[in-house]
């Protein structure tokens, strides 16, 4: 028995040792030591990352959000808070015709890939034609809709000819900001690959960005600065002080645990957090700051203002009066007071109020419409009157009922980001007689896409500098039929020829055109009149910035290039390369 016990014990020890050995050798490699003072530690979920997926065209594993934005660069970036274009790989991108049907791109002559090859017109043509021809690439539809041809005039000049006027193509597609736009890819690498969608890229893929991945496993991604980054020589940037970036996988971890790691200076920044958590972090570690410093609302305006969407093809949401009645049941002032500490972020618009859009919202035409239509009004009595006019009666449970059915107002939402606000909305709607509940289940997004009865708490990830993109979300070309899946941000399935006509007339016009402004106001007025969805809040990104090791984070007081402070966004590279060491 003892001999057997010893044998079993020995086997256990051997198994443990083997596990550790397998673990150690599976990713064993030597990397240079970089001190903590030169290392930036970021907490982000790498759960869905496909290890070694660095090729922007690989599917479905690639996403820029997991550090790949440090590798790939665009023709232009955009500083949203300064309302400024930031030329990058391109020195200029100008429309060469008044009707926006041709665009000339001039590249920076010093732009290079990490293997020493120049970034040239061939790469731009390859990138654009790839999007045009490869149906699986994210901007294929946009290229297909607008681009007629792409031509390299010389090594540094590209002409793009559009099929129809494309005044917003340069900004929406060719400029990287937040999470939209395309980077330029190397023709001499991807052009040699048989199937670009299946080619992962690996850690050695030539790229133009400043950081190169050197380690990628289930727990982290490590990037090292390459000293030969072209942007320094070209004068676009100073030599970054961040020599190493470590993205630590926080998938599955509790928010509190991540917050503890920030407070303990284990991490320099992490995902955006809820107000109470950020407040606690800031109170416990004075080195931690936010976009608004140590004061509420602790965050910056994101491009994703949330609304209660609904499938306007399903009863009773086909009736604008019912939709309006729901909006009248929402007390935005109370929401702002209780949940957002009077940060003033509840909204009546389907777009974020960045400077250019704030200007539009403040225009006399829009103000007049606001005055007339009162889109943010809270009036339970008027809500009740509208429901009665729509043929509903109150049942003994104080719920609106018609033909034996109550108004299903279950809100599909995401617990991680909506757990603070949606329960409030549920109560407000219930008080107004709507049969409301919340679904935070894993099927929430699928329900939105399938257009189930009820409401969907989701953002309008569209407009940034003019209202067209947001208003275009409700064009009938996106009105998917019942039974089919609606695309992202197109959950309303709204269809109105009159509305379509306004948008169609706007499409070829630049935002500076007075007629565009007129039409935009008209479309916004129709959005309010029809109550296509119920706008609720602007979205805040409350990101903790730990200044123990790194300062010069983009904040309200220190806007820098005017980009948002999300290190995971396309503009994250600009955030990281402008950080300054707090412990030089």
């Amino acid at each position, binding site marked *: 028995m003892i001999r057997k016990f010893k044998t079993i014990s020995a086997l256990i020890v051997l198994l443990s040792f083997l596990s*550790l050995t397998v673990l150690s050798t599976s990713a064993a490699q030597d990397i240079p030591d970089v001190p903590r003072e030169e290392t930036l530690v970021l907490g982000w979920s790498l759960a869905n990352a496909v290890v070694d997926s660095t090729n922007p065209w690989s599917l*479905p*594993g690639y996403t820029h959000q997991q550090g790949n934005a440090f590798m790939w660069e665009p023709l232009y970036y955009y500083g949203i808070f300064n309302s400024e274009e930031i030329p990058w790989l391109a020195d200029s991108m100008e429309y060469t015709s008044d009707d926006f049907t041709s665009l000339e791109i001039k590249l920076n002559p010093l732009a290079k890939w990490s293997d020493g090859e120049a970034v040239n017109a061939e790469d731009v043509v390859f990138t654009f034609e790839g999007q045009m021809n490869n149906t*699986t690439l994210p901007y294929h*539809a946009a290229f297909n809709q607008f681009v007629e041809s792409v031509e390299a005039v010389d090594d540094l000049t590209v002409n793009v000819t559009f099929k129809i006027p494309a005044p917003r193509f340069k900004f929406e597609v060719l400029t990287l900001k937040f999470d939209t736009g395309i980077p330029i890819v190397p023709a001499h690498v991807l052009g040699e690959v048989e199937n670009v969608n299946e080619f992962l890229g690996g850690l050695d893929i030539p790229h133009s960005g400043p950081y190169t991945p050197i380690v990628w496993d289930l727990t982290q991604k490590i990037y090292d600065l390459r000293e030969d980054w072209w942007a320094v020589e070209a004068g676009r940037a100073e030599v970054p002080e961040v020599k190493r970036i470590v993205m630590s996988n926080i998938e599955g971890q509790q928010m509190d645990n991540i917050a*503890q790691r920030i407070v303990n200076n284990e*991490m320099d920044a992490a995902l955006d957090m809820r107000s109470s958590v950020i407040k606690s972090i800031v109170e416990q570690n004075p080195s931690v700051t936010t976009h608004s410093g140590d004061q509420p609302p602790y965050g910056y305006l994101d491009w994703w203002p949330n609304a209660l969407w609904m499938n306007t093809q399903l009863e009773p949401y086909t009736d604008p009066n019912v939709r309006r009645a729901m909006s009248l049941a929402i007390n935005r002032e109370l929401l702002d007071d209780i949940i957002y500490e009077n940060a003033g972020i509840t909204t009546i618009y389907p777009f974020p109020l960045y400077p250019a859009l704030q200007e539009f919202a403040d225009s006399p035409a829009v103000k007049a419409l606001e005055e007339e239509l009162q889109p943010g009004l809270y009036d339970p009595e008027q809500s009740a009157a509208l429901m009665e006019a729509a043929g509903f009666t109150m049942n003994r449970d104080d719920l609106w009922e018609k033909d034996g059915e109550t108004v299903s107002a279950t809100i599909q939402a995401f617990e991680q980001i909506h757990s603070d606000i949606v329960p409030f909305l549920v109560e407000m709607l219930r008080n107004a007689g709507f049969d409301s509940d919340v679904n935070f289940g894993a099927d929430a997004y699928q329900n939105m896409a399938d257009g189930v009865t009820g409401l969907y708490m989701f953002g309008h990830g569209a407009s940034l500098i003019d209202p067209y993109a947001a208003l275009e979300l409700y064009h009938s070309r996106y009105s998917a039929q019942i039974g089919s899946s609606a695309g992202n941000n*197109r959950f309303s399935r709204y269809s109105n020829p009159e509305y379509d006509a306004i948008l169609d007339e706007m499409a070829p016009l630049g935002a500076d055109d007075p007629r565009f402004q007129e039409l935009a106001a008209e479309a916004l007025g129709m959005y309010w009149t029809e109550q296509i969805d119920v706008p609720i809040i602007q979205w805040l990104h409350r990101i903790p910035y730990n200044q123990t090791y790194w300062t010069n984070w983009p904040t309200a007081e220190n806007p820098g290039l005017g980009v948002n402070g999300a290190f995971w966004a396309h503009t994250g590279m600009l955030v990281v390369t402008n950080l300054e060491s707090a412990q030089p």
Partner: protein
Amino acid sequence: MNYRILTKRLLFLVMVIWAASTITFFIPRLSPRNPVRERFAELARTGGFSPEDLEAIVADYSTRFGLDKPLLQQYGDYMWSIARFDLGVSLNKFPKTVMELIAESLPWTIGLILITTILSFILGNWLGALAAWPKSPDWLKNIATSFVLFQGVPPVLLGILLIFFVGFRLKLLPLGGAYSIGTVPNLSFEFFIDVLRHQLLPGIALVLGSVGGWVISMRGMGVTIQGEDYVTFAEHKGLGPKTIFRDYYLRNAMLPQITGLALALGNVVTSAIVVEGIFALPGLGTILFSAIRSNDFSVIYGIVLFITIAIATLMVVVEFLYPLLDPRIKPQ
């Protein structure tokens, strides 16, 4: 070795695996969720995909993964691939294979959960046996029974408390992770110590949370065995107390505990899901949790199949181990 019995057991093992695989195959399919669409929808949420292309891309990849075939045909393909030991590719992390995901994560699960399960078993049974042994000093009996206090506390809760007080407030041990951020796994002594430091808190939580159960059960067995004739006989023969404890008392009390250990090992991955999440460990539980969230059929099937095979095999091994431990037991 009775080959007839061995063959019967192996056939039974195959049947168990088949049944488990079949149930596992159909359960996720009861949900209307399409993991390919969800993956691309998630990518679309982060910017880029237009709705027109989304459906086309989803259809393309659904065809590639065989999701557009009739369900029974998919089931047949699935069974055939299992017979060839091919667990397929992850739908969510394509082209990563399921075997690769299991291979990368398994060492962490074995390293922590398996080891702590066995440590709890050994520690708990020793303490339980000593708690019931009449010749044990009172202080030792008190220590043994004090572990029972933790029995009602879930290891997850213990883990959260340990993280908060030991890791966050006192800063004595790391707050989570398998090793220090920025460290690359290697064979150095420093790395080994780093891993050990990171495994201490979860290890303590898991051991504390489960050792009490073994103490109670072993103590109960020990009390029963004390009154047996062979123990009395051994005492009257003049054998030393250590010999009696080890060869007559402990050995006989252990038999039911071995079965309990097999069952506890079967719970390794299920408990790993939450524990690994709390402590940010990249083990099998984390991979399974992620797969369930994204409805990644292939990974769910692969991991559940892996667990099923492991547990079923373990049961067969335990059954054949019994006669080795107790000569009175013969395979039936």
